[in-house]
């Protein structure tokens, strides 16, 4: 019913009667997966994602010998949408993973310098895997919420004397010092709105994925969609994103 959604937006309405600056209801469950060092289930409306964090012992990059290593991966399982296909990660899955990665990396929310085990030789690797379980729109904001929530409850595995992981034992928490959140602002005609449902994503002219850290600092932007966006609208897009980001951040624990 894309035509219908489009018509509604023009008239200032949304199919589910939400206000343009209103998210669908949000549910966040931390510690969802027992085998993961950290995890979170996030539901925004009917969109569901699970983020799991696994900690590994790895080798640092040559130019950052005393810092941990971060890896973000998304799984767009065909289970979650008739549009997702089996096979290697799609362009969209890779883009989402890289936006979430940059949001976490560039916000410096993890204190990477505290992840050295033997400086220059062994450091912690932080693997964040985001499983899309039900794609009903706005994966970007859901994935970012799941990632930061999972990081916030991530524990270190215990190491033995040879710095090998002791399966099932933990000690201490991953040092996470900021809470970046993502707000995707959509534009259709001259209307701006947040948290697009799936049918709304089909009719937007463009989307702007915005990342914000605690104190109103912008930490990531990615324009998406098939249509150019007017230079003069950027200001209000950022204002709307920043306002909603403050609200979302309250949900993150």
């Amino acid at each position, binding site marked *: 019913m894309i035509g219908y959604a489009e018509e509604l937006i023009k008239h200032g309405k949304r199919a589910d009667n939400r206000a343009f600056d209103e998210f669908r209801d949000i549910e966040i469950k931390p510690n969802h*997966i027992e*085998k993961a060092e950290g995890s979170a289930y996030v539901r925004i409306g009917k969109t*569901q994602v699970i983020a799991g964090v696994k900690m590994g012992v790895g080798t640092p990059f040559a130019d950052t010998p005393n810092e941990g290593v971060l890896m973000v991966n998304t*799984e767009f*399982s*065909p289970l979650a949408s*008739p549009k997702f296909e*089996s096979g290697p990660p799609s362009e969209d899955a890779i883009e989402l993973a890289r936006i979430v990665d940059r949001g976490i990396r560039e916000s410096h929310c993890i204190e990477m310098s505290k992840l050295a085990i033997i400086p220059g030789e062994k450091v912690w690797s932080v693997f964040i895997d985001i499983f899309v379980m039900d794609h009903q729109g706005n994966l970007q904001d859901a994935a970012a919420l799941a990632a930061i929530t999972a990081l916030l409850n991530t524990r270190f595995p215990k190491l033995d004397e040879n710095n090998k992981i002791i399966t099932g034992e933990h000690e201490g928490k991953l040092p996470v010092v900021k809470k970046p959140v993502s707000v995707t602002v959509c534009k259709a005609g001259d209307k701006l709105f947040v948290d697009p449902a799936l049918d709304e994503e089909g009719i937007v002219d463009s989307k702007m994925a915005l990342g914000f850290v605690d104190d109103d600092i912008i930490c990531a932007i990615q324009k998406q969609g098939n249509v150019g966006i007017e230079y003069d609208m950027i200001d209000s897009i950022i204002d709307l994103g920043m306002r909603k980001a403050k609200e979302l951040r309250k949900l993150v624990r």
Partner: protein
Amino acid sequence: MAKDLNKELIIDGLRMDGRLTDQLRDVKMEIGTVSSASGSAYVSFGHTTAIASVQGPRSLFPKFLQNSQTGILRVRYNMLPFSVSDRKSPGPDRRSTELSKVIRKSLEPAVILDDFPKATIDGFIEMIEADGSTRVTGINALSLALAHAGIPMKDLVAACSVGKINNTLILDLNGLEDNNSESDVAVAMMPNKNLITLLQMDGMLTKEEFMKLLNTAKDACGKIYEMQKMALLEKYKGEEQ
């Protein structure tokens, strides 16, 4: 994980998680977990959790793969990277390729595909948590998802694992038990018809031991079958309200 057959895993007749030898873990079943699919289900046995969904029936491309007489069933079984102790790197491997095939074969006898010529019905299983017996948990979930998708079926398929540890025969192996078992057997059945659709055995067993285990599995599949029917019933009851 190296098997340690001498590890004491049954003490005073009780398993490490407190279960009796022929006791299932806590089972949860839920229908309709994934709104973006034709059918879906969530099934957990203790800390082994599968989500399954069905996409389709839908046209199969490229066209030369189509069967003009009947629809085809495709199945993908996948373990999520965070579902296991050591992160599993994404993408199919030899194990998941074999399991995708045997799971498909375990469901094919039950589904009726003649009404869907040229089409494919795609079943997907994602293991959210893997604590032993993942393939049978996946079968239980996908069987429900197929029913929920309205695919005609001769019967539901119910599945469970049995095995031998510490020289004792047990039902529903968890991860610890699986890793240290002398033998493990995966069974799927169409209980109403007494038909076995999956049977895989590893390790060493006498014929007598095997037949005993198979009998245990048969009884357990019957119980699981009842839970499956109950879950479907609750779903439809819920929808009627």
